[in-house]
């Protein structure tokens, strides 16, 4: 006689390794000021911000079905919040970073309510217009020094070493919140609804998912995460101006990273960010020619491999890093 058991589990060997490595790396980032050069720390700060911004774009486009070409609106809003809070309210810049998520959320809520009236592709251009509005308004506001931008003088009260400790801790938290938070969210009931929405919004709605409210939530959350990354990025830069903070190039980066990495998967933006980051270090000095290649690569991915690199890899090996679903294993036991 034989007995069989069906095992339901979430994790695989690959995911255990990946999550352990990810947590170790996160824990290692705040120790960097004690062993790494400031050049290396700058690179890690940039990479962390890229991963966070791309992951938020992935949440928006991959799960929410809202393609945005205007995420720079919230990068700039987060960055400017930090500068204004520290210059005018005299707050400690490090403690202002979490507060920098408030303005992006406050801007995102009415923005979504306006933009949702636009159909599919028009929504995307609408986000761009809003980002342009924020850029132009900022460029005309004397309070934030108009077009010349602001400098974060308050950072002068800290030594370079203190600044690096603060920034690396913030980066580790940023990744924990944006990547880890998305991971936990996708595993919850909410995540089930989001995954259903990603696959088919109409049938998700027929199963009782309130698609409109979910999209609103995703839009605001993505804006907050993007704003947080923007605040940390410009804190490290010590300077922000309307043309840098609200640069449409930020959106190009998001789209490239997520599309080439793999949209609608948590691993995609990480793979894409690592690729973009390395490629920019290697080929960035080619300037416009490098950008032509990035553009054509995005075009080719959209045409031939909509799942990106992670999608291609997934066809070869089923080795997830951050599994959000469950898998079944059928085990036969007995004396036969």
């Amino acid at each position, binding site marked *: 006689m034989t007995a069989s058991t069906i095992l339901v589990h979430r994790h695989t060997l690959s995911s255990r390794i990946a999550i352990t490595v990810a947590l170790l790396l996160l824990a290692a980032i705040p120790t960097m000021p004690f062993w790494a050069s400031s050049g290396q720390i700058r690179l890690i700060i940039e990479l962390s911000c890229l991963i966070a911004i791309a992951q938020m774009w992935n949440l928006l*486009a991959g799960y929410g*079905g809202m*393609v945005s*070409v205007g995420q720079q609106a919230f990068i700039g809003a987060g960055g400017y919040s930090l500068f204004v809070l520290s210059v005018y309210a005299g707050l400690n810049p490090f403690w202002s970073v979490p507060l920098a998520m408030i303005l992006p959320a406050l801007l995102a809520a009415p923005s979504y309510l*306006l*933009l949702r*009236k*636009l*159909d*599919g*592709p*028009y*929504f*995307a*251009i*609408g986000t*761009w*217009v*809003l980002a*342009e*509005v924020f850029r*132009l*308004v900022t*460029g*005309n506001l004397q309070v934030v020094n108009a077009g010349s931008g602001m400098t974060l003088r308050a950072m002068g009260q800290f030594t370079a070493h203190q600044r690096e400790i603060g920034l690396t801790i913030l980066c580790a938290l940023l990744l924990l919140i944006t990547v880890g938070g998305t991971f936990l969210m996708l595993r919850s009931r909410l995540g089930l609804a989001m995954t259903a929405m990603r696959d088919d919004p109409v049938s998700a709605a027929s199963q009782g998912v309130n698609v409109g409210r979910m999209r609103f939530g995703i839009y605001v959350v993505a804006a907050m995460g993007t704003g947080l990354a923007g605040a940390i990025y410009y804190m490290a830069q010590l300077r922000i101006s309307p043309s840098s903070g609200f640069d*449409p190039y930020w959106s*190009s980066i998001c*789209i*490239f990273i997520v*599309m080439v990495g793999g*949209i609608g998967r948590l691993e995609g933006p990480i793979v894409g960010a690592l690729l973009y980051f390395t490629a920019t270090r290697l080929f960035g000095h080619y300037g*416009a*020619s490098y*950008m*032509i290649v*990035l*553009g*054509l*690569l*995005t*075009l*080719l*991915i*959209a*045409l031939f491999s*909509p799942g990106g690199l992670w999608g291609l890899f997934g066809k070869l090996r089923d080795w997830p890093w951050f599994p959000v679903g469950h898998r079944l294993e059928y085990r036969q036991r007995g004396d036969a």
Partner: protein
Amino acid sequence: MTWVDAVIQGLLLGGLYAQYAIGLSLMFGVMRIVNIAHGDLVILLALIGISVSAAFGLGPGFIMLLMIPLGALIGWGLQRGILNHLVGNDPLPSLIATFGLSLALQNLMLTIWQADTRSLDAGALAIQSIDLGGIHVGVLPLGIVAVAALLTWGLHVVLKTTRFGRALRASAADKDAATLSGIDTKIVYAKATAIAVAILGIAAVFQAARTTVSPADGGAQLIYAFEAVIIGGMGSIWGAFAGGLILGVAQVVGSRIDPGWGILAGHLVFLLVLAWRPQGIMSRR
């Protein structure tokens, strides 16, 4: 009087925006696709026109005769080579593809023509003006508005009365049913995009003759075209024309109030329309 002048100058500026907008509106109406490289194509055609004009000493009229078929050819190729593979219910693939194309085109133009601003020498036409009771109206801008109106009317007639127009409307209403009735939707789509980009060929010459162009200008042109379409009302060709004129007036009046607020005023009018009348001002709904 200065305000009357501002409104008239705005209407004249809007003629150019209307020309960008009708192609965008046509493509969206038929395929539910927005070509993010729309503005970059205007700039590309303008820069090619300027270079050809400089190399062979041709006037703007000849250049336009060249740019229209070139635009049609580019549009046809764009649709057959790229967009036809991406038409569908999901807006993501076509947006991403044309976004990539836009990034590549912008940087390609930057490599070829550098970041300089250029313009097309329109000769005496560029400075001629008529005096309308104290307000000077440029002959060239007036011509641009007239051509925009003519194009809108022409497209309207083609859509309403010709066999091709019927096929186009059928493909827009229901792709599968159109295919069942013997319409090759891929060809129809390619013709629609060819028309849209051919109109950009006209717009490009006017843009280059009226103001200046530089490789990075495409994004702004796309935004103006899009705003014109939304202000006028999605899916209406005459709406796109009216939206272009309104946007032009908003920008010129805004910049008369404060030079820094011109383009912003255009955006604000767009946002107001979106908030109060999202179906557009020309819509009867």
